[in-house]
């Protein structure tokens, strides 16, 4: 029954896309059929626990939403300055790709990545230093709680006055944004190794560095990866928003604010699409690295296949 609904949905969907340019009302009716059938069939797919179903359900869900977006924007003739259809955005993306890659190079290579590397390393280093002083640690928790709510991206104009309009000022913003998550997670991660484990290392006459390398840093890895993942998305956001304050003529943030000035919404969406792609790819790479390095940790072992209550 649900399989039949799925087949009907696919046929209705293809038909709707085919005639939306000629007969919008008929296409809207067909798309309604497609939506009902599609979601009904997907609900059946969602019940299946197998690995392909777990991947397919969100993928088909997205396809269905994109389809409805396409047919509804075209069927109701929604003006492009409100919401361009996915097809138009895709075409703009493809056509602008060389330009967009240059923007990515400016934003990611010259701002986000240097800032990410410097800010994260400084944060990790500061965390490791503070770890040696229990007295300072006490005060750092409330202070870093406060730091985490500060809208740090507001320092962008100051950094532009100090370092100019180029990538350096954006990298400086990213350094400030990525410092605190790295710092807080390093302190918390180094606290993971228990008293008894540390005492054991002491009884082995292990030096500070040996205890760090063999016990405390491995135990801190889940926290360090949490910091890396947070910082990966924060550095992209920081670099893009800092570009809203002023840039040379490249960069994702520059592209977005320039194209919005021309009301070229399809180009804006294309720039957002490439930012989203960069963000998800970097997150996926870090998540893959985390799985290969911390495969032994409970957070990686359980939860993925276990059914939820």
């Amino acid at each position, binding site marked *: 029954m649900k399989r039949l609904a799925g087949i009907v949905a696919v046929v209705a969907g293809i038909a709707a896309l085919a005639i939306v340019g000629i007969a919008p009302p008929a296409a809207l009716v067909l798309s309604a059929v497609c939506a009902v059938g599609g979601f009904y069939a997907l609900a059946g797919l*969602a019940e299946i626990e197998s690995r392909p179903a777990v991947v397919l359900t*969100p993928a088909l869900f997205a396809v269905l939403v994109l389809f409805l977006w396409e047919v509804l924007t075209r069927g109701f003739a929604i003006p492009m*300055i*409100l919401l361009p259809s996915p097809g138009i955005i895709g075409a703009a993306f493809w056509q602008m790709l060389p330009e967009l890659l240059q923007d990515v190079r400016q934003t990611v290579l010259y701002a986000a990545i240097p800032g990410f590397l410097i800010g994260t390393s400084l944060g990790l280093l500061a965390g490791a230093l503070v770890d040696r002083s229990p007295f300072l640690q006490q005060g750092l928790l409330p*202070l870093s709680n406060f730091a985490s709510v500060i809208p740090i991206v507001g320092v962008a*104009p*100051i950094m532009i006055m100090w370092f100019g309009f180029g990538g350096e000022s954006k990298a400086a913003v990213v350094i400030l944004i990525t410092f605190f998550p790295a710092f807080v997670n390093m302190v918390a991660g180094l606290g993971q190794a228990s008293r008894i484990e540390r005492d054991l290392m002491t009884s082995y006459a292990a030096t500070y560095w040996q205890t760090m390398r063999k016990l405390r840093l491995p135990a801190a890895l889940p926290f360090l990866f949490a910091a890396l*993942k947070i910082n990966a*998305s924060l550095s992209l956001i920081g670099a893009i928003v800092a570009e809203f304050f002023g840039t040379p003529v490249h960069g994702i943030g520059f592209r977005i604010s320039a194209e919005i000035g021309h009301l070229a919404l399809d180009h804006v969406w294309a720039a957002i699409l490439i930012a989203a792609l960069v963000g998800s790819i970097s*997150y996926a790479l870090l998540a893959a690295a985390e799985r290969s390095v911390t495969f032994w940790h409970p957070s990686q072992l359980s939860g993925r296949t276990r059914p939820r209550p």
Partner: protein
Amino acid sequence: MNNVMTFRHTVPGWLRQAASIAVILCIVLAIWSVAATLANPAPSDPEPGWLPANWWNDRPILPSPPQVAVATWNGLFGYPVSSPRSLIFHAGVTLEAALAGFALATIIGIALATAIVHSRLLDKGLLPWVIVSQSIPVLATAPMIVVVLGNAGFTGLLPKAVISASLAFFPVTIGMCKGLRAAGSAQIELLHTYNASGSQIFRKLRWPAAIPYLFPALKVAMALAITGAIVGELPTGAQAGLGARLLIASYNGLMLLMWATLVVASLTAGLSVGVLTLIERALPRFRASQ
């Protein structure tokens, strides 16, 4: 060593923490002061006083601590609250948008999480996308939201609130998904044996069990909502709000105004999150038991 031990054992914990905070702040102030002394050229007509003359440079590269303190104080209390030069006025404009966005995000987030917890389709089909969207720079859409809503006839508060909400609903959704599933299956089965309906299970078990997860999520959401409101004021040349103030300071090279605005933005965010913490503490039976 003996002294350290007695210090540790006789001084109450909060005082030791306060001393620790004070020490850290002093270190930061010391570094800042040295940097301000080194960075700024001396003004041509130095004012008499015991502080270094270049701490009062009118166009500083790095404003000195007392300069920032004076600028912030003047910005907050030097003008009547209704004056467009008062930072309280601008903070109010930003906070209004942020709170509207925060409320919107809380409602959307809780509604979405409730739907996800009750529907396998949304759980399997939508939740993965909500999680993926965490790694996407949503804030990049801010200029577009402002312009599109402006074209549709909405200006002022609403676009900023929408930007705030688009950032802030993620932590609420994900926190509440966890929270609404926090009730164990044994407890849910117990309510089933009482012949409880779905809405009764929600009201009497799932919702109370989710409250300890709600407040940490709300605090993250509040901080994001304020960042969203500030960034939402950047693209359109808004006249009021902390973001607009930052942009004006940026265009005119007013370093002191930038610093004062940032201090006020941080205070606004800190106070709003602090209020949430107080509300959380006022609900003792909902405190996290983990």
